[in-house]
């Protein structure tokens, strides 16, 4: 029987237990090895063990699911993440999908569908539960999409809020430890953020980062120009 290594990232124990129950009901098909994380940072750390799939909630303490997914995918673009949410509002879905997760399901699915979602993603496809797919079609997002035109390549558009904060701290000559303390996150998370920023901005070293960080420090109105 095939073994599936799954990482569950959700702050609610009831949800994690529920999902475990559902997976247990499918043990005639797979052998499941389940790891759990209560927040984004723990999720980020446990993702280094390379699970087959990461099931991740949107609403997480400290660091949102979208932020965590972006960090995981930043360090391992091949990671397969299935987003799981209580919110079927479009922007939550959109935010998650934009980070590169491979699927989005709601917290009302049954075990068969859950397994189908996992299998679909492991086969290299994308899975949305039907409610999510309907929402994506019914949401009239013409102007919302045109808002993100390529010409708008501002730093704020490319980097997440947290990444901007980290970049700013780097410009202010903080060390990774100091940044971690300042932003109440772990040093490893800071390092991940830094690596992702370098990837996104296509720079090779800290000097390259500082070039981007300096305009963020200039008081508004007296920027470089």
């Amino acid at each position, binding site marked *: 029987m095939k073994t599936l290594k799954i990482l569950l990232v959700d702050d609610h124990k009831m949800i994690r237990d529920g999902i475990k*129950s559902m997976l247990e009901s499918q043990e005639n098909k797979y052998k499941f090895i389940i790891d759990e994380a209560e927040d984004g940072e723990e999720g980020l750390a446990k993702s280094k063990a390379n699970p087959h799939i990461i099931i991740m909630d949107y609403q997480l303490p400290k660091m949102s699911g979208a932020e965590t997914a972006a960090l995981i995918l930043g360090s391992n673009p091949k990671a397969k993440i299935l987003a799981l949410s209580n919110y079927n*509002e479009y922007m939550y879905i959109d935010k998650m999908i934009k980070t590169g997760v491979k699927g989005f399901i709601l917290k009302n699915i*049954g075990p068969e569908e859950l397994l189908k979602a996992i299998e679909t993603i492991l086969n290299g496809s994308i899975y949305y539960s039907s409610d999510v797919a309907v*929402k994506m079609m019914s949401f*009239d997002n013409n102007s919302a999409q045109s*808002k993100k035109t390529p010409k708008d390549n501002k730093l704020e558009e490319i980097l997440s809020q947290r990444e901007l904060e980290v970049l700013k701290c780097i410009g202010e000559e903080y060390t990774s430890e100091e940044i971690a303390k300042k932003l109440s996150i772990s040093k490893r998370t800071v390092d991940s953020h830094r690596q992702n920023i370098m990837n996104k901005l296509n720079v090779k070293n800290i000097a390259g980062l500082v070039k981007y960080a300096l305009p963020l420090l200039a008081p508004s109105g007296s920027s470089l120009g």
Partner: protein
Amino acid sequence: MEPRLEEINKLLINYSLGEFDYKIEPSEKLDEIDAFISNINMLGEELKISTISRDYFNNIFNSVSDMLFVLSNEGKISNANRVVKDKLNYTEDQLKHNVIDFITKQKHHFFSHIKDELNKNEHVVSFDSNLSSVNGQDIPVNCSCSYLYNQNKERIGYLLIARDQSIIRKYEQSLIESENKYRNVFEKSSDCLFIINPFGKILDINDAGMQLFKIPREMLSIKSFFELISDKEERELFQQELNKKEFVVDFNLKIKNSNEAVISCLVSVSKSYNQSGEVVGYQGIVKDMSRQREMENILVRTVLDTQEKERKRIATDLHDSLGQKLSGIKFHIEALKAMQKNIKDRKYDTILTRSNDALNDAMVELSNISFNIMPGTLQNFGLSYAIKELCAKLKVGSDIFFDVTIEENFPEIDKALEITIFRITQEFINNSIKHGNASKINIRMDTSFLPGNISLFLQDNGKGFEIKRLSEYKSMGLKNMKSRVESYNGTIKIDSIQGWGTKYEILIPFNNNIAKENPL
């Protein structure tokens, strides 16, 4: 001068001296003067015939209400009537043979003034002066003085008539005082007071009014009060009321001053009439309510804000706590159901399916309730996405067509204002679907219509309602919507045609200062 008039003059002087023999010959013109001459001749005859005793003259002399003095050529008092003694309290001895000057305020100039004036060929001199009583009290008098002649037409002295003016002066004084008092009230009032003619031309306005309207004095005469009322409908309604009623009390008007600032005011006006009962104008008072309105707005916003914060808390609790727990339970039941399937006992399967369905319904309802209370999208992603989400939700499983156009890069605005605009949209759509049975709803929102303002255009093709009922704002929803908009100094225009649909046009200024100014 006409010689006959000179004759008449002489005759009258003679009459005044008790000489009634003098006669005037009428001319041959037989005009009005001749008619008068014949009358006056007849009067002389009658006077001559009647027995006129000296007592009779004394009687008259003493019974008139004015003070009478007979003065010698040197100005000494030779006779004075009883009124003089009553008013001035001098005895006969004190008065007699003293120059009149001693009872006047001027002391020296009184008599010389009379002499000078009469020398200028005047028959009668008339002037205002003061006479002093024994105890030094001044009595304002109006004096008339003329020469006295004897039978030989020689001047034998003067007749001085002094009319006591103190009561009239008192009336005049109190009239001036009360006029000043009213002028003072008018000028110093902190409310604007104004007088206008029937066409609204401003005739008078106090300082408070000038400050309120910011009209330069020189512009006043060409300004119409009615032009200052910024809203056309309000202006017409106000003028109708004014025509119908004697007075209008506390009428809500928005007045635009010369700086283009719109001030909310309470205006009370009453009509003024002339003697023939025609309306000659209006007088009124304008109370500047902007400060009070602003306080009311702050209060409304604070109440709403508190409500919305509480709603947010409830929605979050429902969604993130209860919702998660329900999901957890559902997962367990789903797992049980899946395992039950393998055993294939239909009885258990039915019960599990039912509980699963019931739980599903509960979760959908919870999600809808918490979205209606406070959408997560509104809190996390802003107004334009929240409106789109609202439409997307309602679109599923219904025939309603939504046409939503929201400006690209819609600015980030104060969260409380975002919630307000969302609530208005939510209320409109609810009404359209629930009461209006609409199948098409248009939503347009942008900031380009009027710079600094959000314009929100909402339209449906529903049943519509009678607009007259609306002016009474009986509907709680509409009333709430109006007070929400007005608390942000916005305007809402509602148009509805029965059978065709309803249209709202809303303009709200979105300078983020409103939230910062809030002192509460």
